């Protein structure tokens, strides 16, 4: 690499740092840039600039992430005397969706590490990265329109159930299973995208139409057949039923248990796909670090529900259902030839995880607005209860 190129890269790193740091730290970015220019050796100058960029990136990210919550609670931007640990702790307490987004980012990154070490094709890594970007963009977009379109939530659950039934009946068949559709040349598993969201939405919005949608989804899982997703549905509804033993939930739980039993009875002969299924075990054969990345990435998926359960009692059903759904997905991946969510190859689970964050409150412990009950079906403790998803 020529000296000019090294200087150019060092300058680029300094400019990137300046763009990343918040206004209160801009003078530090300028100081590093000038300091870099003063270093006579090109290689050392590049090392200095890159080291500063990577070293200060957590500070930059922490400041950017905390800014919205600081505005929300009327606090000024945090002083730099506060620790990064404290900043992320604050975010975790006040912004469950932001916490979930960070966990998704971490899990995908760990999954990329695993796939990189395991020698997965490079386009697998690109697809997972793109899925994360799409999922987080959809989360941001739908999070904004939720309030405006609240009345469509149960209808959306029904439409999503229709999409799952259509997949079972018209989707791509592989070894007797019909779980996939082809979109834009890519094979997508709609149940992984939609079902966690549907379950979370049902936990908050329980009308007759929403219940019918969940029953239809259970039928679709039995038809596909998909033990993992049927187990996810039954497991998370069982958790919801324990917390809120209401008639509509019990009916939906009954349908989901029947669906799960049917999937157990039906043959499932799909072999394990490399980098997708069975990686909780096989990753340790690749390298200890790869196995640790897969385990840690899987554990990260449950962090939003654990933190929320402990710190935000008013919204425990939402956190419990979210956690139960993704725990069921992880357990299914451990027991059978089913996709390992997020850390394995596959964009459907990544998008599904990001979308399922919509069921978590945007702001923990927010004051619930005026009750908008419809014959007692809504949970009055949910501050952010109106879920609408434009995924049909």
């Amino acid at each position: 690499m020529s000296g000019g190129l090294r200087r150019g890269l060092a300058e680029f790193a300094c400019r990137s740092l300046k763009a990343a740091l918040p206004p209160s730290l801009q003078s530090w970015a300028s100081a590093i840039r000038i300091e870099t220019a003063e270093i006579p050796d090109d290689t050392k100058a590049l090392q200095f600039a890159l080291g500063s960029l990577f070293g200060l990136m957590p500070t930059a990210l922490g400041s950017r992430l905390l800014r919205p919550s600081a505005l929300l609670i009327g606090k000024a931007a945090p002083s730099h005397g506060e620790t990064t640990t404290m900043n992320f702790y604050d975010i975790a307490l006040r912004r469950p969706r932001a916490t979930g987004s960070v966990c998704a980012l971490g899990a995908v990154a760990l999954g990329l590490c695993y796939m990189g070490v395991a020698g997965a094709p490079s386009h697998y890594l690109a697809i997972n990265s793109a899925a994360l970007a799409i999922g987080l963009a959809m989360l941001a977009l739908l999070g904004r329109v939720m309030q405006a379109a609240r009345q469509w939530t149960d209808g959306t659950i029904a439409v999503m159930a229709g999409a799952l039934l259509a997949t079972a009946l018209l989707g791509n068949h592989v070894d007797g299973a019909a779980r996939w559709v082809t979109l834009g040349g890519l094979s997508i598993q709609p149940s992984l995208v939609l079902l966690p969201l549907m379950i979370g939405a049902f936990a908050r919005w329980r009308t007759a139409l929403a219940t019918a949608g969940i029953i239809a989804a259970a039928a679709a899982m039995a038809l596909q057949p998909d033990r993992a997703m049927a187990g996810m549905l039954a497991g998370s509804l069982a958790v919801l039923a324990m917390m809120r033993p209401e008639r509509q939930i019990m009916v939906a739980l009954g349908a989901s248990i029947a669906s799960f039993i049917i999937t157990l009875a039906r043959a499932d002969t799909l072999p394990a796909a490399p980098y997708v299924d069975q990686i909780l075990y096989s990753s340790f054969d690749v390298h200890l670090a790869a196995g640790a990345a897969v385990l840690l990435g899987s554990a990260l998926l449950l962090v939003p529900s654990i933190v929320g359960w402990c710190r935000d009692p008013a919204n425990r059903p939402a956190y419990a259902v979210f956690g139960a759904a993704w725990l069921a997905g992880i357990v299914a991946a451990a027991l059978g030839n089913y996709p390992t969510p997020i850390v394995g190859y596959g964009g459907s689970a990544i998008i599904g995880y990001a979308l399922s964050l919509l069921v978590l409150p945007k702001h923990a412990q927010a004051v619930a607005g005026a009750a908008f009950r419809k014959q007692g079906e809504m949970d009055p403790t949910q501050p952010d209860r109106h879920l609408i998803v434009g995924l049909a």
Partner: protein
Amino acid sequence: MLDGRGQWWHGYELAKLAGIKSGTLYPLLIRLEGQGYLEAEWQQPAEGGRPPRHAYRLSASGEQLARANPPGKPATSVAQRRKAMI
């Protein structure tokens, strides 16, 4: 820095002296400055035509902190404990 007795230091110089990378140094400098243990200012170089450089030295409270926690001795103050959490 304590040995410099009020001397101003530059970032690259400090990284070399302390034997740490810039990615470790600058977050520490930012934090110490935010906590009032470090003074930072832009200084005009002696040679003309060069841009001002950021220079650093310990503040009075920073010197006190450094004296109370010499190298090899475990940090005792609350601030040092908070720093260790990062």
